[in-house]
């Protein structure tokens, strides 16, 4: 269980570091976020009936007279209780409930995009690196890789322009058609899928190339391995040699890489949601930015850190199941 413990420690360390950075870095700048929040509340106080109550709540919450360390301790303690405070703009809605209501959309869209991209990319890479792939197939497969260098939102804009604006085939924004009642119905499901096609495609198009190139390299490496040549000498079907011997080993570093790049993927997703007006937590972040809703910005940022760290932890914990060389008992990294 040493492995599990080491991974858990790393998870907690990541989350703690993220929270600490989110807490301290803004305070290093001249403007104090608390001042900014209160200032904003005061300036909009005329329109808000209970401005005093909010200010009171915040003063209490941030304990303005306490030292920064006491504030920091309180901040961490509150994070533990999943208490990120209140939205300034939508008081008294809590930050956590805002995030929670947006989370399923992000998880669904991101999950779909990551899974599809990982599968399609690695399959492409497998074929690109396999000795028996016909040459023309290899040529055709390199074509979709040209988008690899581009940011997802860029491809997203192009897709919207072509498929929504020019052809009108697919909806450009939102998560579902507002005229369809949300619920467990086929119509709603179809609407959700229809709205997810473009953003997911955009993300898949720019991320699959990375998987494909990595997999291709690993395929070339494993092709030279003695156990693959021996499998060949055993007269196994070439599909068995390919999947049970070559791909099975080549995929391992790709899974490690998945863990490393999740943070980057999540960052790209925030912008994708903004471009597609998709009601996930990236959109919440964008709205909070435009409305200067500082507690929401801070809260979403922390949830992003937490979410990615959790996903990395899951990848780490799954890894020993597919690579017997890493055992839960071993203490090596």
């Amino acid at each position, binding site marked *: 269980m040493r492995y599990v413990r080491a991974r858990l420690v790393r998870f907690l360390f990541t989350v703690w570091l993220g929270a600490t950075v989110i807490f301290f870095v803004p305070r290093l700048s001249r403007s104090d976020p608390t001042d900014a929040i209160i200032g904003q509340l005061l300036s909009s106080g005329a329109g808000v009936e209970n401005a005093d109550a909010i200010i009171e709540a915040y003063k209490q919450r941030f304990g303005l007279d306490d030292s920064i360390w006491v504030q920091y301790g309180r901040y961490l303690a509150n994070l533990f209780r999943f208490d990120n405070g209140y939205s300034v703009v939508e008081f008294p809605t809590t930050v956590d409930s805002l995030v929670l209501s947006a989370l399923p959309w992000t998880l669904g869209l991101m999950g779909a995009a990551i899974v599809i991209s990982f599968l399609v990319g690695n399959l492409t890479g497998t074929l690109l690196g396999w000795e028996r792939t016909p040459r023309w197939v290899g040529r055709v497969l390199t074509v979709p890789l040209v988008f690899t260098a581009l940011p997802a939102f860029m491809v997203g*804009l192009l897709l919207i322009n072509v498929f929504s604006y020019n052809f009108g085939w697919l909806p450009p924004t939102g998560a579902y058609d507002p005229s369809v009642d949300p619920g467990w119905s086929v119509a709603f499901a179809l609407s959700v899928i229809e709205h997810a096609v473009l953003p997911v495609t955009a993300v898949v198009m720019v991320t699959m190339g990375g998987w494909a190139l990595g997999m291709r390299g690993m395929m070339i490496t494993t092709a030279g391995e003695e156990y693959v040549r021996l499998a060949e000498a055993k007269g196994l079907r070439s599909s068995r040699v390919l999947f049970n011997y070559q791909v099975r080993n080549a995929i391992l570093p790709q899974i490690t890489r998945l863990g490393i790049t999740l943070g980057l993927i*999540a*960052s790209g997703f925030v912008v994708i949601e903004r471009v597609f007006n998709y009601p996930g937590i990236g959109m919440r972040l964008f709205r909070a930015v435009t409305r200067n809703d500082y507690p929401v*910005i801070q809260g979403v940022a922390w949830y992003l850190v937490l979410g990615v760290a959790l996903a990395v932890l899951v990848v780490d914990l799954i890894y020993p199941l597919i690579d017997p060389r890493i055992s839960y008992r071993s203490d090596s990294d």
Partner: protein
Amino acid sequence: MGPRSWAHWVNPTLIAGLALVLLVIVSEWVLPVFVDTDQIAAGSGAPSVVPSFGPTPDLAAGFVEATPDHPLGTDGRGRDMLAVLAVGTPRTLKIGLIGAGLGTLIGVLLGFSAGYMRGRVDTVISTLADTAMTIPGLAVLVVVASVVGEIGVVSMGLIMAAFAWPMPTRVLRSQVLTMRERRYVVMARMSGSSTPGVMFKEIMPNLLPYLAASFTESVAGVILAVTSIETLGLGSRRLPTLGTTVNNALEGSAVFRGMWWWWLPPIFVLAVIFVGFLLLTNGLDQVANPRLRDESL
């Protein structure tokens, strides 16, 4: 094996990338010759009209497609797009270069220390770098940028550096660990010249291609990150960058008004930058690691 010969650096991928990047850089001095950059001020394209959201583009409505006066048209607020690009492109590039430059510098120092000293120093630096890599940079950047408000090119570059160091740190560390055991370095160590300074001089020339590749990769990464947070409406508001231009186009619903000349040019320039730096990075990787050349597509 000493420092590599210059022949290694003559590499088609590298040259193509360099050409694209230079093209973008040179445009900083070339474009202002053709366009009055003062036209980035709102309404300069159609001074007398209030921006409107009318369905058909014409000068009276505040924005136009290409005209002789405005070869790339004007945006929803009547700003000349060519002027916007002429001002925005170098600003975006500068942020990338400053961020990646400082990030790489930090990476060199940390990575070299970790690889050279090993032991506890290595553990601390590696753990920090690995952890920092799994923290989504955008989340933290948004927090910082939303507090700071208006951010100039230099400060934005400095902020970005804080997120550009883990990758070069890892690259440097693993390279130094490998190089450390190479025969000529072992020889240098045995012959008494084992101070970090001498090691640094011994190892650095061989690390140059790795470093250069890591730097160009960072530039693209920083530009992506800064463009991303600008797309969320953060960063510089007074003067345009490519990212804020995309954000303006999004806010102005440019796509749905058919104003392709508003959102497409900044994206096109960004694409050239990204492809250019990708080619540069791949080319430098091939220089650093000649075996890759035979395997490249």
